[in-house]
């Protein structure tokens, strides 16, 4: 019984513990790792995946999935590139790009909430079609961006702009999920759609919103990434859905809906993934091995998560009798 007191908090906070362990390991292996510059670098490079992952988390909470985020990023970038080429000033071009990306999310919302397609299929379609659309309007050209577009390299009070954008979106998402009716209703719907419908919630509108939110986050991520890379290529955002889903799941968000959080959950997940890839660069691990190592790490983290959930349900099961010699009734963390 006493050992349970210890295991419970450990299991609950596994993502955070993994994060600290990985940080300690890399710092030990290479002293250059634990510097502010490096950390600020990690945060900066992970913010575009982070933005996508925040939107993805909200979609996952409803039990859905959004595979089209990479295409949304590309559409955003393509629109920005085309407009800049036409001589449109920077800010209106960015605004139009974000709008275009968000509109692409409305297609997902329509397909899932009104046509009733399974999210996996609907967003797989918009993923392929979105990239095709981007290629069509850009004729697969690469745009080299003017110098003024490298705003992502700027920083305020020593904090890089992408990190600020990421932080603002995280705060907004946390407030949205925890403190607004709609946020709580998203959790409710992820837990039991039928009950949500019977409780009078507008499940169609809720479902539609999460895809629009996800697309908006992806569009923002597109703007950040374009600026960081200084150009817009046809491969923009390719494969980002895997990183975003992995980060959310690493942070404890369930693929079945109803369980998960943006902070600390997904934020830790994103930083963990980025820290591992940066760490491998520091340790000069063979470039060709890095993808495999990253995949193995994610595999183990998700595996540990599955084991953790199984153990948690077992530990939290109610006892029906109190054994002699034990004063404890059930598992009462407050008495610890």
């Amino acid at each position, binding site marked *: 019984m006493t050992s349970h007191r210890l295991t419970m908090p450990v299991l609950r906070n596994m993502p955070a513990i993994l994060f600290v362990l990985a940080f300690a390991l890399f710092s030990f292996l290479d002293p250059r790792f634990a510097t502010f510059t490096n950390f600020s670098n990690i945060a900066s490079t992970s913010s575009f995946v982070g933005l996508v992952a925040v939107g993805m988390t909200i979609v996952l909470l409803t039990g859905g999935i959004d595979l089209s985020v990479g295409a949304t990023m590309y559409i955003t970038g393509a629109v920005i590139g085309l407009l800049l080429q036409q001589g449109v000033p920077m800010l209106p071009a960015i605004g139009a790009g974000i709008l275009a990306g968000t509109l692409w999310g409305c297609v997902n919302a329509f397909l899932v909430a009104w046509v009733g397609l399974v999210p996996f299929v609907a967003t797989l379609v918009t993923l392929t079609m979105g990239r095709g659309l981007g290629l069509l309007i850009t004729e697969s050209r690469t745009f080299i961006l003017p110098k003024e577009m490298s705003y992502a390299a700027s920083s305020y009070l020593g904090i890089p702009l992408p990190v600020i954008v990421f932080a603002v979106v995280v705060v907004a998402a946390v*407030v949205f999920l925890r*403190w*607004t*009716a*709609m946020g*709580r*209703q998203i*959790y*409710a719907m*992820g*837990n*039991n759609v*039928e*009950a*949500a*419908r*019977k*409780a*009078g*919630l507008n499940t169609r509108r809720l479902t539609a919103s999460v895809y629009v939110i996800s697309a908006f986050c992806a569009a923002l991520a597109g703007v950040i990434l374009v600026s960081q890379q200084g150009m817009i290529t046809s491969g923009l955002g390719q494969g980002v859905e895997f990183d975003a889903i992995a980060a959310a799941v690493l942070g404890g968000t369930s693929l079945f809906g*109803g*369980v998960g959080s943006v902070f600390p959950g997904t934020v830790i997940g994103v930083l963990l993934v980025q820290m591992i890839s940066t760490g491998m660069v520091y340790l000069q691990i063979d470039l060709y091995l890095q993808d495999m190592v990253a995949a193995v790490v994610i595999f183990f983290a998700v595996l540990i998560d599955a084991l953790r959930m199984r153990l948690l349900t077992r530990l*939290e099961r*109610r*006892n*029906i*009798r*109190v*054994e002699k010699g034990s004063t404890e009734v059930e598992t009462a963390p407050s008495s610890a």
Partner: protein
Amino acid sequence: MTDTILRFEGVNKAFFGVPVLEEVTIDIERGSIVGLVGENGAGKSTLMNILGGVVPLDGGQMLLDGETYAPRDPRDADRAGIAFIHQELNLFTNLTIAENLFISDFPRRGPAPIMDRGRLRKRAKEALALVDLAVSPDVRVERLSPGERQLVEVAKALSVDARIIIFDEPTTSLTTRETERLFGIIDRLHQAGKTIIYISHILRDVMRIADAVAVLRDGQLVAAGPVSDFSINSMIAAMVGREIEQLYPDRTSQPGPEISLELRQLSKAGISHQIDLALHKGEVLGVFGLMGSGRSELARIIFGLDDFDEGEVLIDGQPVKKLSPTRNIRNGMAFVTENRREDGLMMEATVADNLSLAALPAHRRRFVNTVRSSAVASAVTDSVDALSIKVHDAFRSEVKGLSGGNQQKVVLGKWLMTKPSILIIDEPTRGVDVGAKFEIYETIDRIAAAGTAVLFISSELEELLGMCDRILVMGQGEVLGAFERAQFDEEAILRTAFREHVA
């Protein structure tokens, strides 16, 4: 002169061309408690879903206070002051009690869409006080017992200040004490002038709390009037359309001498304590206990779903070291779980697919392992006939379209197809109507006569008294007593079961 608050007028409803309600006309008097009874599939739930705005009606109309009432969704019903406590609980287990109570109407802080958690908590506390539930509103629903969850549902219904409150089978997962508490609350609501529609299969309860009764059969209103016009027998007669002479079939066999399943001093910390049990061939052994007595937990251990710490298990006299469902099924054991929706059925699959699931390994060709579908098909047909499962086309109809009683027969049929030598059944007649109950009892008797050892777990003592050769009484994970059929005594058994609670 009567004061009608709600009138159903010639209500019609059909699902996929099959009529479920035909010309139903009922007047409900203001401030009364109306018991709505009928067999599963008689149309009670559909009628209430129409009232609650969950499904639209096809024909006829509803009049609320004399005015046309046509809800488009559950929100409209809310606004009209109609609260619906559904049979299957509609709580979000990942949210707190307070969040559940106000999920469709969170108190806001000012004009911004930010919720006011302080007011939320305060209002939740008030709502919980109405149902005497002394739990913090910040507790997540997943940590509550079934009874506590039911009370949260009631609190939720009360929090919208309803005029008409529908209870759909509210007591199926409640302990005796929780049921009493619920009746106390219903009584208080009644005195406060609320109109209540109470749906239940437990006719004794309907007789006790209702002022008026309406009986549905096959989608039609067959009897209605003040409760004094009815007796339990006349209600049953109206429900099934004929007199039922007996509720339980005569037992046609005696237990054999061989022991099929034996437990010796089986213990599991926090769950079971030194359980001794011997189940004979051809015996129907009842396990009775109050909610939370450890009956179902014991069944899970026996079937290998949960492990145990100490003790021995013998199947057909052979000690078994480790129990697992796969091995148990191979050894001829079958387990009809208490929760057919979650654990017992694939709701979206056909009746045939559900029935044949456990028996598929027995119907495979040698070496290539493919399923002999014609043999499966004939086994399915036999099973549908033997259990008289009412289904249009077993190979095409989905299980979720069946009534509760027929769904339960499918679960039972699935395991009977494996020709088990040991059958564990947990609450096989919960939420099942009188007619289907009798058929399930007959099936139990038939397989016991064929030599199957049956472990019959139930919280309805009456059915155990009617069906079992022997009854074990459990409480707090222990066996508190055992009664032979000759010494069955309802009072003595109840006293034994309550022992721990009285002390």
